[in-house]
């Protein structure tokens, strides 16, 4: 249990008997007014968003979720299957993958963090940096290596993103999965 004013973005709480992640908290207090905390929440099971306001000293059930390191194994429509070191397999729904789905590709070796609630895999977190191949991009603009001019490119995952103009088909690039932005070209 935590009080509402102790909650921070990233905490997971039980709200209406559902696990919800705290996206944002806003503490307000003045004069004799009871301190209140306004919160934005997102359901971990269904991604539904909600806003609520609580008394700052109101007790809230917090949830410590289990996490396990896994690698992506295969896609068994409509589930993505991940596997831990002991070869246990876990199905994750596409919508629970969030942005991670943009970087899922057969044969990827990235170590992923799979989060569990009541022994059910509910989300997957990729490493901060992943490397993916550019499957298609417009030809490079001659002489521009500054990286300031960008162009669309399609990764081997099917995801389209903006990359600097000097990136070419077949290049491997580093992507920051927190911001979904190009980081650098790698050999």
């Amino acid at each position, binding site marked *: 249990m935590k009080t509402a004013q102790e909650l921070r973005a990233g905490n997971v709480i039980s709200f209406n008997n559902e696990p919800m992640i705290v996206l944002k908290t806003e503490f*307000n207090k*003045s004069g004799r007014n009871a301190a209140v905390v306004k919160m934005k929440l997102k359901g971990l099971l269904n991604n539904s968003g909600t806003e609520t306001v609580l*008394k700052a000293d109101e007790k809230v059930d917090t949830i410590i979720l289990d996490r396990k390191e896994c690698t992506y194994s295969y896609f068994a429509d409509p589930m993505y299957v991940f596997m831990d070191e002991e070869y246990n397999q876990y199905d994750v729904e596409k919508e629970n993958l969030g942005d991670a789905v943009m970087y899922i590709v057969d044969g990827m070796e990235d170590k992923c963090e799979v989060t569990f609630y009541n022994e059910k895999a509910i989300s997957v977190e990729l490493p901060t940096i992943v490397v993916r191949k550019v499957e298609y991009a417009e030809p490079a603009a001659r002489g521009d290596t500054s990286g300031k001019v960008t162009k669309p490119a399609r990764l081997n995952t099917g995801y389209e993103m903006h990359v600097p103009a000097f990136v070419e088909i077949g290049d491997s690039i580093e992507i920051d999965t927190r911001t979904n932005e190009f980081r650098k070209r790698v050999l």
Partner: protein
Amino acid sequence: MKYTWDIFCDVIDNFGDIGVTWRLAKEIAARELGAVRLWVNDFSSFGAMLPELDNVTSYQTQGVSIEYWPNKFPPNVVPATYVIEAFACDLPSSYVESMPRETKIWLNLEYLSAESWVESCHGMSSGANTVPKYFFFPGFTPKTGGVIVEKNYQSRLSAFEPSTYWQRQGIPTPSSNELRLSVFTYETQSWHATLEALSKVSRPVSLIVPTGRSLNSLLPLFTKETSCYKYKNIRLYTVPFSTQEHYDELLWSCDINFVRGEDSFVRAQLAGKPFVWHIYKQDEDAHLDKLTAFLDLAQVPSCVKSFHVAFNRDDLQLDTASCLFEQIPNWLQWSQDWQEKRINCEDLVTQLVKFLNSKV
């Protein structure tokens, strides 16, 4: 369709909490919106404005059932359709357990504030409860819940004759150029400069002070006379602590009103007379944010703002006080304009009912 209402008031201190909830309960009853119970855990503060509460634990008046809220709450109380916890008080656990069977909406009625964050929290759903719960914030903008204005307020005000008030109190009717002030404040050093400035206004001045904490700061500065107290050209008359209706009449009868807390602060605004708000002091001067939010939102004249800030910081100087009393005509004009806005805005009970209807 009429519903039942339970309003819970945990009296922290003084009269602000009970003043607001009592006024709200009466107005809900007066509009015949259903049976109203007001649960109060301290009858001593309440008794100051309703002496009939002496030696009783239950009393019915003006359409409201007033019930004593004991530490050990009776387990067999059937909760109302609408439950209002005033100022974030904690409801009895046995009562909360019974609410899902009876209660449609549970509201936390908060303190009045002009701060901008209030708008974003007003009407918000609160937590995950077995009964839908919402925060309801009184305020001064259309995105808040307004203030309590009785349906019959204007007709009472129009029909009122100040001379009847003075007669009843046994206080001389003011002379034609007299400046008469009502004083209902907490203790403050700021009275030194205020009295000094008032002594220079070249008009007779009188203070009308309901018995209570204001006198702790004022009386040591005055000399006792036969029927009043005196400081230079200023006379001070004490009056008994009164009902809310009689306090309204005091505010209507004076030229300037010094008020405190929440209920009297709102009543001073509705009176359309210049007023000074002595806000309840909080740790780390949190009350000053609330005060300046109001002064800024209401766009009070600059001398009024300077006086308020200094008075509430207990460091009022003579020049700031003198400046205020030189600007009474401007101050009065602002007060009348502000009164009109408050009376023409949708009042709290009307908004409350609309809100509840939209959620049921």
